[in-house]
């Protein structure tokens, strides 16, 4: 991929981000913060490349540390988002105490 392709992808992705975020309902803004956290850890791809490469030991260890940090975020971020989202319920489904049935 040449630079201009990447730039084009980036610019269009910014438009998509703009629209998709504005379409998020305000009630879910906290889960939005949590899930953006999780997905921004896609940086783990870079850490994997660093750890996989056998070039420099220092780079490898930095990569492994990056993997661990990003993993905390990925697992933690998606799990906490899922936890929050399961809390949002409609009226008709009996909730709360009703759940123990």
């Amino acid at each position, binding site marked *: 991929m040449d630079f201009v392709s990447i730039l084009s992808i980036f610019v269009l992705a910014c438009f998509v981000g703009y629209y*998709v975020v504005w379409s998020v309902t305000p009630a879910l803004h906290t889960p939005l913060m949590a899930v953006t956290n999780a997905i921004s850890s896609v940086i783990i791809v870079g*850490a994997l490349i660093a750890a996989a490469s056998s070039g420099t030991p220092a780079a490898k260890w930095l990569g492994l540390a990056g993997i661990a940090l990003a993993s*905390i975020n990925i697992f933690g971020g998606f799990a906490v988002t899922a936890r929050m989202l*399961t809390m949002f319920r409609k009226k008709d489904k009996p909730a709360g105490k009703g759940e123990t049935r």
Partner: protein
Amino acid sequence: MSEHAVNPWVAIAYLVAGIFFILALRGLSHPTASRRGNRFGMAGMLIAVVTTLVTHVIASLPEMLIAIALGAVIGLTTARKIAMTAMPQLVAAFHSLVGLAAVLVATAAFLDPGGFGIVDAAGNILAVSRVELMLGAAIGAITFSGSVIAFAKLNGNMSGAPILLPGRHVINLGTIVAILGITAFYAAVPQAAAGEGWMFWTALALAFAVGFLLIIPIGGADMPVVVSMLNSYSGWAAAAMGFTLHNTAMIITGALVGASGAILSYIMCRAMNRSFISVIAGGFGAESGSGAEGERIDRPWKRGSAEDAAWIMKEAQQVIIIPGYGMAVAQAQHVLREMGDLLKAQGVTVKYAIHPVAGRMPGHMNVLLAEANVPYDDVFELEDINGEFAQTDVAFIIGANDVVNPAAKTDRSSPIYGMPVFDVEKAKAIFFIKRSMSGVGYAGVDNEVFYMDQTMMLLADAKKMVEDVVKALQH
């Protein structure tokens, strides 16, 4: 498959991962679609990770799996244990990790450019990659140190008071200019000449310092805007690394996250009627909730009791509950829902009204009420419910303050003038829960509503007070 294969399927896999991330955010447009959205997000991440693993020769799989497992354990434990009221801190902590990971990746790429495929024929790092690396590392470092401070302030490890160094604007601007200057110089050097390492490390150190310097002058109460801004930064850092690695998934994600953080900051600033610049310049919100501004003239007000409230609400047609930051502090959401259920059982219509900036984080109140099993169709946004106060018997304000302050509509000199607020004064009766008459809200201003004819102040901790109301309702 060999390293750096120009296999189009690899690029398509990353594209699919990016699209799945778009769908993850898109799901949040409605609660019922949101759980599926979250699964799209997980699937996207899985695709990105697996694609990376199968397309690289891996010299150290066991170590990598251990690192992932370690992260998974820590992440999952935190996610399960964390209290919903601690979400602002958690988000800040997670951002610091993303920032640090970006720094580590950029540094690794700097040390082992061959492994990242960003060297030219002579073995030097490509000029455009040098800029991307340096920017990615610098943004990551700012995100890291800024988020650490934000976490400490939100979590109470550090005083929320702004720490104002003299000449801080000059220092900060100077440091940022220095980082950009070094980056430009580094990119312009035709060969990876001597001093390459020196330039990278200096810029990185300066960036860590800037993140620190930028955030300490900002008061604890302004932290949510800062957290969102740092969220945005972490996105741009990921995008910069995506440019380096020619990775569509990272670029798309970076743009999504960058946009999300920027838009949330914008929404908060707009709803607080403040400019983004004034937040970032710092020094505001030092005394939030401390009740230090006690120099108000004494005016008559009425004190109510839990029994009064129970009695009047039982007889009401419609009660609108307005939760705010105090409800979160007191953890009163569960007992509040119980109160609502008891009232509903008496035939009262109960609605929850949430202001866009109630609490200390966008959507803060919604999550807490959802945690307490309040169905989301009982919860209304400002513009959807504000017309109803005139037909409402009781406005029940619990731990909210600024978001019901009529000064925002009438008093041009008020710091919150222009912020949209609930028209609670139109309700027939108002109950106002707070701990003391001297305590103020985030904006630190007095509230006309305390002294209105139809207002009864319920002074106590929110949870305690609502528990008493529930008891009174039960017999």
